[in-house]
């Protein structure tokens, strides 16, 4: 009975306890009690994960009534890392939920579901065999579906979002089931340790790889399997969106890692290329859609697709490089991918929680109707701002470190001590760098838009004008996230080393802590010390600040109603740039990719058709993957469904005919 075993058991027990509690306490105390117990579950998870990441071992086995291997939970270092990430997010979410959850999202069902959602997510990375992996996976899926439909009564889209979400997660589940089935058939066992025996070069391995990657991709929100994200995330209660986006999606990433570096290590080169392409497309498509979205939660959802894309890109690059023995760069790339995972969890949680606070304060998700919240909600604004910096990968945040490592890995990948490793790599790497660069640039724009439009300038609607700061817990949770972003960004060294240890002992060779807590990549001779950078900035800032202090003695700041305001009157707040107009140039530039649908209605005055009375412009950006790929399939299925009705048209003669035909066929068959 090691500490890890105890931790695993504790999570299960706590989950059961907390659901019991949820159903027993009165409604007044419910949110508090359940929230705290959920936080406890995640704390247990975090502790277990940390232990496992530090190398602690332990396993929990549950026998089944069926003649299969017993369920076995036994996290390795990698699993520990993901358990830790999920649990950390879980804690924030639970704490935030205590104040945020209200109405349907504070119902008994929702809180109980949250408990199981958390425990499911935290135990997926602990699974040591296919059956228990699938079990936890489905617990996670079921609970999240229940949470998603919490507010079905008011959200118009909730119902359809639920259907899409559950269908896509079932697709993912069935793909995983298929993949693991093939693999376990080859390995003659469902335990992961046995599956490692299957050779990665065999065609079976390739089939399994593709199936599993698709399955995990659809949970991780890779294009073209991402369609559920922009539907589910906006409709779910915000703290649930946070958990989904910051933690659940990571389970897809964990699965991909499980396949690529644990179950089927050292696969053929084209696996890497496949991941590279999938990741690249997802990253660019995701960030483009995010850039033009004006629903803040939809924006965040698409940005999740982008980040997952980057993670898969890093993973793919690493596999490609490894298959050409550029191990140092490969390790750096995959460590960078893990850093992206951690950092995305760190900034996406506060972003969604912040969005929740905005929703709570203004009842608005649409950026076009927000503005000026920075002064009305300073704490939320600060947290959201820092998180946006993280999402835009600017220095001293965690996002910057991650992208920096990834880029370093890529640019040093194509050549090992002066020797060109291979032509494909020398073409893939520049392309990858370009993709990352474009993505980063657009992310910059996206989050300047998100923060600037929502928190700066003047309120664009009365709701925004009458906004108020949210209760304490809802302020604290995002701020913790923001602190985490800065901590990871300022002290990346130890973090990177820990991540490397999750990959494997040889990866640890390629990364070390430099200076105060900077990260150094000895094998490719690059280092980054954010603290040093910060100090330098502080030094150069000192004279500037002194000048400010001195001059502001004699020349204090004056506040005027109107500074210049484009000349003339202070114009109406509605004449400010909105999120839509902010992204408009971009929309034009990427017209071919996004294909927005515009329609302009001009109504003339009766007297003359040269004088215009009213112009109505409507512009819609729809997800082209959905309209182009899913709609046809769905309508086809629908047609089948209509046709199939004729099979059961009620005529008993026809029914007897079926039986008769079957009888004749069977008779002929057996007599042949």
């Amino acid at each position, binding site marked *: 009975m090691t500490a890890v075993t105890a931790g695993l058991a504790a999570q299960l027990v706590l989950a059961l306890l907390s659901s019991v509690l949820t159903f027993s306490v009165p409604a007044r105390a419910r949110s508090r009690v359940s929230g705290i117990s959920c936080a406890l579950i995640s704390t247990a998870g975090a502790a277990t994960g940390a232990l496992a990441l530090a190398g602690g071992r332990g396993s929990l086995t*549950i*026998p*089944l*009534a*069926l*003649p*299969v291997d*017993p369920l076995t939970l036994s996290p390795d270092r990698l699993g520990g890392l993901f358990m830790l990430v999920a649990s950390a997010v879980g804690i924030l979410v639970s704490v935030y939920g205590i104040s945020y959850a209200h109405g349907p999202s504070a119902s008994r*069902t929702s809180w109980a579901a949250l408990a199981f959602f958390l425990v499911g997510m935290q135990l997926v990375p602990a699974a040591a065999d296919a*059956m228990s992996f*699938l*079990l936890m996976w*489905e*617990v996670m*899926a*079921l609970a999240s579906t229940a949470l998603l*439909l919490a507010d*079905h*009564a*008011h959200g*118009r889209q*909730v*119902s359809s979002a*639920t*259907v899409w979400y*559950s*269908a896509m997660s*079932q*697709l993912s589940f*069935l793909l995983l*089931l*298929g993949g693991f*089935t*093939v693999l*376990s*058939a080859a390995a*003659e066992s469902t335990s992961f340790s046995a599956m490692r025996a299957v050779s990665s070069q065999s065609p079976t391995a390739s089939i399994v790889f593709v199936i599993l990657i698709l399955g995990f991709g659809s949970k991780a929100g890779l294009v073209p399997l991402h369609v559920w994200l922009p539907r589910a995330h906006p409709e779910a209660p915000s703290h649930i969106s946070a958990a989904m986006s910051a933690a659940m999606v990571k389970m897809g990433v964990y699965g991909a890692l499980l396949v690529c570096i644990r179950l089927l290590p050292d696969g053929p080169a084209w696996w890497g290329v496949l991941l590279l392409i999938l990741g690249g497309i997802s990253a660019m498509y995701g960030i483009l859609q995010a850039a033009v979205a004006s629903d803040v939660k939809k924006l965040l959802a698409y940005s999740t697709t982008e980040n997952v894309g980057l993670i898969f890109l890093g993973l793919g690059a690493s596999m490609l490089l490894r298959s050409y023995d550029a191990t140092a760069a490969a390790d750096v790339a995959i460590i960078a991918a893990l850093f992206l995972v951690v950092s995305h969890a760190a900034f996406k949680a506060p972003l969604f929680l912040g969005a929740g606070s905005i929703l709570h304060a203004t009842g608005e998700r649409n950026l076009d109707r927000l503005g000026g919240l920075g002064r009305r909600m300073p704490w939320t604004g600060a947290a959201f701002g820092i998180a946006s910096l993280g999402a835009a990968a600017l220095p001293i945040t965690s996002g910057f470190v991650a992208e920096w490592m990834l880029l370093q890995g890529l640019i040093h990948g194509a050549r090992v001590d002066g020797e060109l490793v291979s032509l494909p790599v020398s073409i893939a790497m520049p392309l990858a760098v370009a993709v990352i660069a474009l993505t980063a640039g657009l992310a910059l724009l996206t989050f300047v838009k998100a923060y600037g439009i929502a928190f700066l300038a003047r309120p664009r609607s009365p709701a925004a004008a009458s906004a108020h700061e949210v209760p304490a817990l809802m302020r604290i949770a995002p701020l913790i996230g923001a602190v985490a972003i800065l901590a990871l960004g300022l002290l990346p060294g130890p973090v990177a080393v820990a991540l490397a240890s999750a990959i494997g002992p040889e990866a640890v060779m390629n990364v070390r802590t430099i200076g105060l807590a900077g990260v150094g990549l000895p094998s490719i001779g690059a280092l980054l010390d954010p603290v040093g950078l910060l100090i330098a900035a502080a030094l150069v800032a000192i004279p500037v600040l002194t000048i400010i202090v001195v001059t502001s003695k004699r020349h204090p700041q004056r506040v005027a109603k109107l500074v210049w305001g484009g000349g003339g009157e202070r114009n109406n707040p509605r004449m400010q740039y909105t999120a839509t107009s902010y992204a408009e140039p971009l929309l034009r530039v990427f017209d071919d990719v996004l294909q927005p649908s515009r329609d302009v209605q001009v109504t003339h005055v009766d007297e003359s058709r040269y004088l215009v009375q009213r112009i109505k412009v409507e512009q819609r950006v729809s997800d082209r993957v959905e309209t182009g790929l899913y709609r046809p399939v769905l309508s086809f*299925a*629908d047609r*089948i*469904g*209509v046709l*199939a*009705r004729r*099979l*059961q048209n009620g005529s*008993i003669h*026809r*029914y*007897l005919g*079926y*039986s008769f*035909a*079957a*009888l004749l066929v*069977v*008779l002929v*068959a*057996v*007599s042949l």
Partner: protein
Amino acid sequence: MSSVLWIPLLTPIVVAALSALTNWPPLRRLAGVIVSVIVLLSGVTLVIAVTQGQVPTSAGGTLRADALSAYMLTVVGAVGLVSNWGGLKERGADDGKNSGQYAALISLFLGAMSLAVLADNLGAMWVAIEATTIATAFLVGHHRTRRSLEAAWKYVILGSVGIAIAFLGIVLFYAASIEAGTPTLSWVELGNNYLALDPTFVKIAGALAVLGFATKAGLAPMHSWLPDAHSQAPAPVSGLMSGVLLSVALYAILRIQSITDAVLGVEFMRTLLSIGGLLSLAIAAALLIRQRDYKRMLAYSSIEHMGVMALGAAVGPAALPAVLLYMLGHGLIKASLFVIAGRILTVEGTSRIADVRSLLTRRPGLAVLWLIGMAALLGFPPFSIFFSTVDIILAGWASGMAVVMAVALVLMLIIFAGLTRLTASMLFGSAGNDPADSIGSDSPSTDSSSHGPRLPLVLAFVVTAVIAFISTPIGTLLAAATAALAGTQ
């Protein structure tokens, strides 16, 4: 111990006679429950006996309870209990002159199924299964409306024609045994290899028998009666038919399979069952996409689940424990769902999905139960259907049925999507925004009563949820049942 074999056979007859003759309302109301309880208890006793290694037989071996039979008897009892107990209030409405008839028939129905699973004689098994048709014929037509009459007619015609074909098969088995020198219909005898049966006989016989019993098991293309009958019968009857009758028929198929496997090898029956299973899945998928009636929806989902079980049977011993567990899980869940459907029908007055909106806001008491049931039916853990499905797929692939399983997975996805869509359109949305209830749409009256006993349903859900985690005795029992089928017991 062998006397226990007679209890589940005689009690129903007695109860039926009493409730038909004496006009004592409590008995008439509770007849089904009483019989179910007794069947369940005797099933459990037999299970205990079997797990102690003994095989109770009686009537010169015509009645025989090995692990499989005992298990099946328990399933019959359990599902019967859930559907009858849960259905108590549902048919409180029409306690009229024919309530005695109802009680008698339902008792006989349970008795017939008990005989079917306890008989070690293809003929007796056939008679019993045919008897279920007779017993349920009037139960399906119980409401005496045009529709129920139509359903009953189709059910009887298709059912008895199919079962007749099965009888032809059994006759051929008998003929084969005569050829082999020892005339017998005991599947234990027939399944033993020392009886040198003529393969050509067994081939045709097996094919016909399976075809016939497939009609009762609701496997495509013999399934046509199922949606009509299940949607028209009173809720408890639908629950029983969908929950156990199908499984009992499948049990018959398993017995036949044990014979043919012994004589012809596994391939023959595997092909037959794979085709049947896939066809059923396909039919279910195609007709669930645009389903308009929620009771028919449940019926088609039964076809789907029978299809999956048939695939499991096709796989053979490796997947049989999963199939047996599947029978129990599906039986309990489907019975509960039919009971809830009946309650929804009584309060909403329609079985059209389009007319039932935003149930979750208006009638949480019913909708929540419905949601849990659907989750279990869709194969979410911790409910046992999840484990059964996964195990069947795993075992199937391992035994070289890769293509079949792949196709099955695709069809399962379609079915899942269809069911989710229908459920969502029934349950979600605010009570205000639908034209269906114009009056008082601003303040929808929410009633959280479940319109009937909640306990049996909860019990069913709990059992289904925990059973898969009980390795002993359930695991050992399932293993023993599989062994019994393999003829090693």
